[in-house]
């Protein structure tokens, strides 16, 4: 659906996007992550057709952004950062304009506007000027504009920016709904939103792809570690933490609460190396003759991975293939 090949853009001496390649399949919701200045917005602008690349290309639904720019634009619904819209217009006028600008046929324009108004919960504010809308409604309007021509590709740049937690939850639900049948690229600073919404992640650093893959994979396995909370019934004098620390694949063990026969031991275990599946801990408990009461994988820190992959000065570069279906 989206194939990005060695896309490059310079602003004078600054390489904003430097040879970025990745692919996004149909019905993929891909999170685009990176620190400020990593090149996310520049990359999205090139994909949305508002900025011409210096070299490289991207093919959106078979249309090149360099050779068939206008056709490629028609395949994309784009929400720029801060969800801009015309303050003087009414919401319905804004949506009608978006439909006209994307050449929605005159006969089906009204239905298209009503569809997205319903989808994005804008029915109550259709005849209000945009300037009177709250931040949450503006974001919804921005998303509605991106959807009005029913494009196969959606590109959202910081759709959560400036929202309170309730609005953020609403927008998250909306994104989930609208993204079911589309290929979506979602750029955000909010790692929690990426973990909640996206199954795939492309991590940019200094204009290059610093990491790409499934969100879980990137948060845990990319750095070669997984963290688990283990609750196990063992005698009070069993020395569980020492025994567990010696087990194959276990990198470290932190004792959270000592067991006493009735109460289970509670430990945080970090697995590393070749075998980092949670079953390692299950096997250990069985071998030791302990009863495993709980085994919970702790949400591995995408933040830590983000820091690790984006903090290096040289910004290790590779290409990422992001595929698969949600």
């Amino acid at each position: 659906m989206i194939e990005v090949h060695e896309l490059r853009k310079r602003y004078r001496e600054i390489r904003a996007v430097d040879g970025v390649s990745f692919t996004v399949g149909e019905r993929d919701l891909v999170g685009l992550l990176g620190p400020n200045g990593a090149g996310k917005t520049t990359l999205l602008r090139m994909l949305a057709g508002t900025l011409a690349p210096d070299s490289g290309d991207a093919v959106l639904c078979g249309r090149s952004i360099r050779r068939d720019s206008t056709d490629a634009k028609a395949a994309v619904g784009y929400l720029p950062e801060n969800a801009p819209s015309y303050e003087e217009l009414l919401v319905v006028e804004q949506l009608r304009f978006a439909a006209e600008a994307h050449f929605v046929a005159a006969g089906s324009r009204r239905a298209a506007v009503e569809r997205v108004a319903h989808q994005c919960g804008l029915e109550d504010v259709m005849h209000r000027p945009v300037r009177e809308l709250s931040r949450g409604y503006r974001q919804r309007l921005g998303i509605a504009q991106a959807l009005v021509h029913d494009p196969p590709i959606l590109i959202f740049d910081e759709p959560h920016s400036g929202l309170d937690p309730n609005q953020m939850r609403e927008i998250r639900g909306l994104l989930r709904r609208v993204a079911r049948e589309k290929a979506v690229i979602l750029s955000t600073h909010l790692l929690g939103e990426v973990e909640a919404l996206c199954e795939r992640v492309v991590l940019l650093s200094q204009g290059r792809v610093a990491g790409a893959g499934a969100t879980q994979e990137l948060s845990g396995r990319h750095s070669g570690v997984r963290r688990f909370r283990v609750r196990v019934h063992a005698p009070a004098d069993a020395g569980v933490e020492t025994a567990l620390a010696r087990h194959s694949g276990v990198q470290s063990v932190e004792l959270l609460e000592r067991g006493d026969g009735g109460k289970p031991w509670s430990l945080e275990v970090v697995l590393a190396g070749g075998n980092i599946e949670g079953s390692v801990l299950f096997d250990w408990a069985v071998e030791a003759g302990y009863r495993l009461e709980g085994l919970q994988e702790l949400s591995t820190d995408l933040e830590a991975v983000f820091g690790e992959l984006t903090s290096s000065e040289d910004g290790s570069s590779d290409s990422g293939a992001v595929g698969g279906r949600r």
Partner: protein
Amino acid sequence: MTRQALTTVLRKELRQYSATGMPYLVVAGFLVPAAVWFVWFYDFLGTDLASLRGYFAAFPVLYVVILPALTMRTWVEERRTGTLELLRSAPLSDRAIVLGKFAAVMCVVLCMLLLTAAVPLSVMRLGAFDFGAIAAEYIGAVLLAAASVAVAMAVSCRMRSQVSAYLGGLLVLLVLNAVHQLPLFVNLPGWPAEILRSVSLEHQFRGFARGVVDTGSVGYYLTLTAAMLYLAELRLARAEE
């Protein structure tokens, strides 16, 4: 597709204009001084001449002050609010965007010129006016307005605030209107003075104000309009950089 794109932008611009009320101010700001000039300072009633030459002679000066007010927000607001990015992400060509915006400003200008018809209509029975001359004066007024709007739009394309867009447009239009006066202050040989006269918006309008349609002046205005719109289009392509 380009025509549809152009009308889409045109309709959007007109909706915005009608919501801001700016055009009403601009039209009033043109009509009132033009009428005051014609009746009061030019003293049309005291001239005993069935001609609107004095009325149309004020147009170039009024355009310099008024038209940049119509074009100053064309690009600046789009850029400030981020809607330019939204506009350019739609499958509309940059040419359609520029032409749509230009057409919207010209719609306001044409309404303004239509309202000036109240002056010829009200003085018509005072004498035997030459309607051919009046038609020529209107043709000149439209062409001069088109060239002035295109120049002001090309200037505002480079500006970051509405004030600088207005002042920039005013300054460039002022220079383009008054450039033929330079030989009055600087001793220039014949051919440079002739070049300055030929590029002066005001000088080219003199024929029209006399009721003569000079094809050279028509060509100049059309060429200048096209060149300035093309400049705006080129600038727009680099707008996000």
